[in-house]
């Protein structure tokens, strides 16, 4: 069984400060990226997309995690702490609760793979992996993302389940769709702010 600890990882180039994970114990046949989350309660989603750009370019976008909020639709903020550490925060839609956690990159193979996970003590333990593989026939790069998290109990958990419970994979798919558009087309398509016959007033007028 491969080690969950990035410190012992043979592939990882980085050595995070906190090797321990929330629960790594009993489950068998679990890939390394799964282990952050306590097995039976974890939510795991995987989606992939083919992007007609070189792997290195796509990897570079993800390696700077601060780019991620650009492709995620709900409010998410990511600050860089060090080359491998980052601080994430997202607001929950009740009170002024903010979900915050520190994340650390636990595996990093330039042009091929990035894996990260939350540090111990996170309110919502979570982990993610993105891998980049050449598409057949040199037609771009297959980008596969796996996310997993351990939903907490209580109000926050209920909100999270509602937010992502219906279609968690759909949200990852949407982020990947926006990522692909940004990389291939240079912008994310939108119609927000366009005119329609629903608005009774003319807000914007030429001449």
């Amino acid at each position: 069984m491969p080690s969950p600890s990035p410190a012992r990882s043979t592939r990882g180039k980085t050595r995070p400060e906190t090797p321990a994970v929330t629960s790594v114990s009993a489950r068998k046949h679990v890939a390394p990226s799964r282990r952050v989350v306590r097995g039976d309660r974890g939510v795991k989603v995987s989606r992939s997309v083919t992007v007609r750009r070189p792997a290195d370019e796509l990897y570079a976008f993800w390696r700077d995690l601060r780019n991620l909020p650009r492709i995620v639709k709900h409010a998410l903020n990511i600050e860089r702490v060090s080359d491998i550490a980052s601080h994430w925060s997202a607001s929950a839609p009740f009170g002024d609760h903010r979900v915050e956690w520190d994340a650390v990159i636990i595996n990093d193979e330039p042009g091929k793979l990035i894996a990260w996970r939350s540090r111990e003590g996170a309110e919502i333990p979570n982990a993610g992996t993105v891998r980049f593989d050449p598409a057949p026939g040199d037609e771009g790069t297959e980008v596969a993302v796996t996310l997993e998290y351990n939903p907490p109990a209580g109000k926050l958990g209920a909100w999270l389940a509602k937010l992502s419970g219906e279609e968690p994979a759909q949200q990852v798919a949407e982020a990947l769709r926006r990522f692909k558009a940004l990389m291939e087309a240079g912008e994310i398509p939108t119609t927000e702010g366009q005119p329609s016959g629903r608005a009774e007033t003319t807000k914007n007028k030429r001449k």
Partner: protein
Amino acid sequence: MKAVCWMGKKKMEVRRVSDPTILNPRDCIVRVTATAICGSDLHLYNGYIPTLEKGDILGHEFMGEVIETGPEVKKLKVGDRVVVPFTISCGGCIHCARTQWSCCDNTNPNAALLEAVAGHGGAALYGYTGLYGGYAGGQAEYVRVPFADVGPIKIESDLPDDKLLFLSDIFPTGYMAAENCDIVPGRGVVAVWGCGPVGQFAIRSALLLGAAKVIAIDNVPERLRMAEAGGAVAINHDEVDDVQDALRAHTGGRGPDAAIDAVGMEAHGSVYDQVKQTLKLENDRAYALRQAMRAVRKGGVLSIPGVYSGFVDKVPMGAVFAKAVTIKQGQTHMQRYLRPLLKLIEDGKIDPSFVITHRVPLGHAPQAYAMFCDKKDGCIKVVLDPAM
């Protein structure tokens, strides 16, 4: 500005709305000088395509002048005269690279909706429901044009709008329908169901591509006359006992080498389909499609520019299989055809303005929709003028 808004089934209104603004770096804004109503707009008008919302601005056939460009627009300049194709394409995805422009991956903000229905989402279209991206259309004084360097074709000559406008949709659509027929010049016989504007351009394109004979099928006399004027042999399906027999008679018993369904989901002819469509048991009335499937010769091609949106009943798959028929279809890959077809117009090989029967002010759009839908007053194609 003034814009033509869908306010419910068979209810169009010209409303005052906000002027469009640049929303993304590759956008431009076009002042519309001419726009038209398409047969595809009738599917919306009649309420057959879901995810249209009250207040949506329709229109996907338009041309005009560039009056503003976003910071990432490199080729187009303010003042350029352009025709805008109805499919919105990014130019950077694998489908754009393969010139399958209407399959573009990156322009539809609601691609997930189409993905749920069809497995994959296609390119966005102007003014054509949320499924196709929900972009405001061009039946308006101004329109926002995303990916300005990929879609619009710049016009350098001083040809009038009437000759150029249909590069935005129906000429390329009819042309692609004919090209899909794999016509062997001097030998190919093509049958075209539907003599609306798309059928008219399919007929003329098939002849330009060398078809030996084109047979046109419809039941609207003035449309059949226009088809004949374009070089087709006309069959009025109300005046023959059996369309397939009539086609056999015109082809020495073989059947046409290629069949074009330029009718789509609102074919007339079958009470069965009309009832099912009304009861929402079937999205599309495929009467012409079924006829075309049975009539086309063995080893032939079935080319479908007519729009289908959902499920179709009683498709004679066995006939298509037994005869080893090839089916080609889809939204037109517009950007593929703009330059070559502009050249045909400039060289005088075709004058697309033949199809225009009515020119009215944009403000008369509601009446024009009704007239076009009901085929009143000999209406075949309406051009709307925002300046009138």
